[in-house]
């Protein structure tokens, strides 16, 4: 057992001693080394270590939470005491059942790469230089504006009074570049390319080149035709559109609180029969794969949509117990409205790796298949969507016009409007190449009858 897990167990013991009926402690955090690009310059880098300890103490349904960012026995005791005090000041949650019980922990392939711990600052600088040089070399009109590379190691140790005592760790290697192109008075939008991997696999040349190519292609602007068209969506656009509408609607908490449009639709056809969507918490090399979730519950696979039919929602321990179900291992921590580190928040339900099953078409055939429509690489403003109604109204940036089965030119000022719950019903074709963007592992998809608004 590591010192981190020992600290968790100590904190649990202290909370119980102070009268808690149940207690859970978690140590989360890790290290990150980053080299940044700003305005085409590689001129800033950082190495940061941040770990913290949090305690949830329960006093007969009263739930207190506290955390601190130092890992000493004294801090563990202070945090446990603070959590107990918070619990006593809190009104009881009559829906509280209990903390999770231990389960069989699966093994997951490829979440940790030892090589990441050995990467030096000089190697990282070299990677970032290759990336910016590759972008700048492609075309003199390109400015590699923002981006960089980082190696991150994250650890997780959780213990609770019902017998959970688990640890896990993962690594992430990121290379990203946002490039702009400028020609006279025409400025491209910031065009980004990002490579995320569990392994240390430098592909800096490719990242730089792709960002630059995209930025330059945005200089060739043609007219935007408003109307209803088939649209080819890239993974990034898809991820954004799903994140703020579809994803909340398959969360168990949203379902049980009457906030999900899918609440009473289990077993019904809610999407195109071409769609299969799986939440895969143990996907080999998946960016969000781990053996356990952030309450220590074993991760697994949850089929969400099978041939268009809604099969299951995603749960953490709390909402699963309210609904009389098993947790699907989807408890996450960190982020939230104040962008907190993972140890500073209580669990909430989020997807792990949400996998949209790939189809069989190449990018080229997909474009041909669109015939007369648009190719939307990314969207802007998706976080302003209405999760309850599914309505969205976003700018398509960058986006291109497809005419006669060919990508003709970039468009500016185009908006994509509609409702995600209708959008998933109109998926016509799926590409064969999948990639992971954030939580989403998906191919490109063609959606029919998408409304494009333009001046």
């Amino acid at each position, binding site marked *: 057992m590591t010192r981190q897990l020992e600290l968790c167990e100590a904190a649990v013991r202290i909370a119980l001693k102070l009268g808690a009926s149940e207690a859970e402690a978690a140590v989360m955090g890790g290290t990150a080394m980053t080299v940044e690009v*700003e*305005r085409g310059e*590689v*001129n*800033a*880098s*950082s*190495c*940061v*270590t*941040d770990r*913290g300890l949090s305690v*949830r103490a329960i006093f007969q349904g009263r*739930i207190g*939470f*506290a955390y*601190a*960012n130092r890992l000493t026995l004294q801090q563990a005791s202070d945090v446990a005491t*603070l*959590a107990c005090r*918070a619990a006593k*000041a*809190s009104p009881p*949650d*009559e829906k509280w059942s209990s903390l999770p019980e231990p389960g069989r922990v699966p093994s997951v392939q490829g979440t940790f790469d030892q090589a990441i711990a050995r990467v030096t*600052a*000089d190697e990282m*600088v070299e990677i970032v230089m290759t990336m910016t040089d590759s972008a700048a070399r492609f075309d003199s009109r390109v400015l590699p*504006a923002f981006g960089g590379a980082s190696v991150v190691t994250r650890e997780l140790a959780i213990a609770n009074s019902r017998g959970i005592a688990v640890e896990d760790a993962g690594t992430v290697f990121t290379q990203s570049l946002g490039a702009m192109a400028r020609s006279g008075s025409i*400025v491209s*939008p*910031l065009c980004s390319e990002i490579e995320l991997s569990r392994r240390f696999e430098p592909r800096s040349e490719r990242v730089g080149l792709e960002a630059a190519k995209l930025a330059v292609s945005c200089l060739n602007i043609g007219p935007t035709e*408003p109307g209803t068209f088939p649209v080819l969506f890239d993974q990034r656009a898809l991820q954004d559109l799903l994140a703020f509408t579809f994803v909340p609607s398959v969360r168990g*908490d949203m379902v049980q*609180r*009457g*906030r999900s*449009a899918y609440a009473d639709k289990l077993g019904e056809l809610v999407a195109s029969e071409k769609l299969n969507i799986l939440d895969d918490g143990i996907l080999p090399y998946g960016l969000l794969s781990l053996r356990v979730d952030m309450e220590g519950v074993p991760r697994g696979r949850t089929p969400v949509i099978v041939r268009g039919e809604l099969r299951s929602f995603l749960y953490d321990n709390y909402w699963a117990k309210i609904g009389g179900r098993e947790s699907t291992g989807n408890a996450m921590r960190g982020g939230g*409205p104040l962008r907190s580190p993972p140890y*500073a*928040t*209580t669990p909430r339900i989020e997807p792990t790796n949400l996998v949209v099953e790939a189809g069989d078409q190449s990018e080229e055939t997909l474009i041909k298949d669109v015939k007369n429509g648009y190719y939307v690489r990314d969207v*802007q*403003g998706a976080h*302003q969507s*209405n*999760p*309850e*109604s599914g309505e969205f*109204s*976003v*700018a398509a*940036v960058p986006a291109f016009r497809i005419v006669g089965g060919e990508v003709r030119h970039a468009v500016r*000022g185009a*908006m994509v*409007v509609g*409702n995600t719950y209708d959008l998933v019903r109109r998926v016509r074709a799926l590409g064969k190449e999948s990639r992971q963007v954030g939580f989403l592992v998906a191919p490109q998809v063609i959606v029919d009858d998408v*409304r494009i*608004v*333009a001046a």
Partner: protein
Amino acid sequence: MSVADTLSSALGRAMDVRASYGEIRAQQTQSTAVAMRDGRVEALSQAVESGAGVRVLLGGAWGFSTSNSLKKGDLLKAVRNACRMAEATSRVVREPVKLADVRPVRGSVRVHVKVDHRSVDVSRKVGDLLELSKNCFSHDSRVRSVTVSYADLATDQTLVTSEGTSLEQEKLFAWNYAWITVKEGDRLASARDEIGAHGYELFETNSPDAIARRVVERAQNQLRAKPAKGGEYPCVLGTNVVGVLAHEAVGHICEADLTLAGSAIQGMLGENVASEVVTICDSALLSEGFGAIRYDDEGVPGERTVLIDKGVLVGLMHNRETAGKMEAKPTGNARAQDFRVPPLIRMRNTYFEAGDHAFEELLEGISFGYYLESFRGGQANLDGTFTVGIQNAFEISHGELGVPARNLGISGNTLATLREVEACGRGLELECGRCGKGQLMFQSSGGPPVRVRKILVGGTD
């Protein structure tokens, strides 16, 4: 030994002699957070955290590192790590970073609040949130769920630099967010409300019941709203939408780091970029705003920075690095979310200056258009493409407010849109909110209501 003395001594002992600048920014933060779902407290959270961020300029490159403890040994290690990172990057720097000169400051700054949230018992906070939650349910039986998130933070920050600055600053924030869902038949709708203050006067200016009424009314409007038409229409923007326009569409591209990266206004200082009724400022001086600061996180005094003056682009927001590069004066816009990250150029209180039109005059003569009352969120791209999601809108028909219009977004190009601004109304209303440029930052934005000749409305009708 005081915190400042410990920091100063660590910097003095461990900073590489080749470094041209170094700083340690230490903080201790006390926080309370309450997450309430449908009147149930999901968790009452309390925390005390401390740490220090170290930034070093060596060979023209930045190095940054942190320590979660303020013990001298840990601080020395963080300073050495920052130097090591700067050194690695300095080998490839083409244009060395040069900082604009500032006068070192010494002193201590406290925030004046009516009610210090640290002195308010947590049971009163829970009580206020319960009242807000209950009132939402009682105002309309169609309310299905109410989510309330409250947080308050009290930070004591000490900044020590190798140039002799030694500055203690207090930072106080109280923040509340409410989100409700309503259902009628099969139709779901939702509305949000976000408020902030520096102290617990938060719920004095906005009583829990006033918030409940406001957010319920917004959701009710959506239930009876009809779909908006898609296309270009004349619009009157409410004060909080004007704020998002000032922040997202104008503010971000006037942050000098983004301007230098090639934003849409690059090279346009001194040029006409908007109609002459448009004056936009970013000010550290409006004390009720979330962006009120005496000094920024580089120790530069906060000021009122005019970005656009009667249509002419006259200023940008700077930190010491961009000011050094552009031979400008730092404006006090360098702000960091916490010690874990270095400061970036961030907005403070960003707003349109008031004009002299009554609200009715703004509506006059519009045969068909939209009044965009409140927003759901906003986003901007460097090329000036902005989007604002609107949660509450009304049709304008023959100069009069008409029926509500459902969830819509507006989008456009900043410069094209600013040229279409026809008139500004009276007054200045600021709304406290959050901005996420990599790091989270509390800021405010606002203005008077504003009339725009045409704006692209992303409607489904």
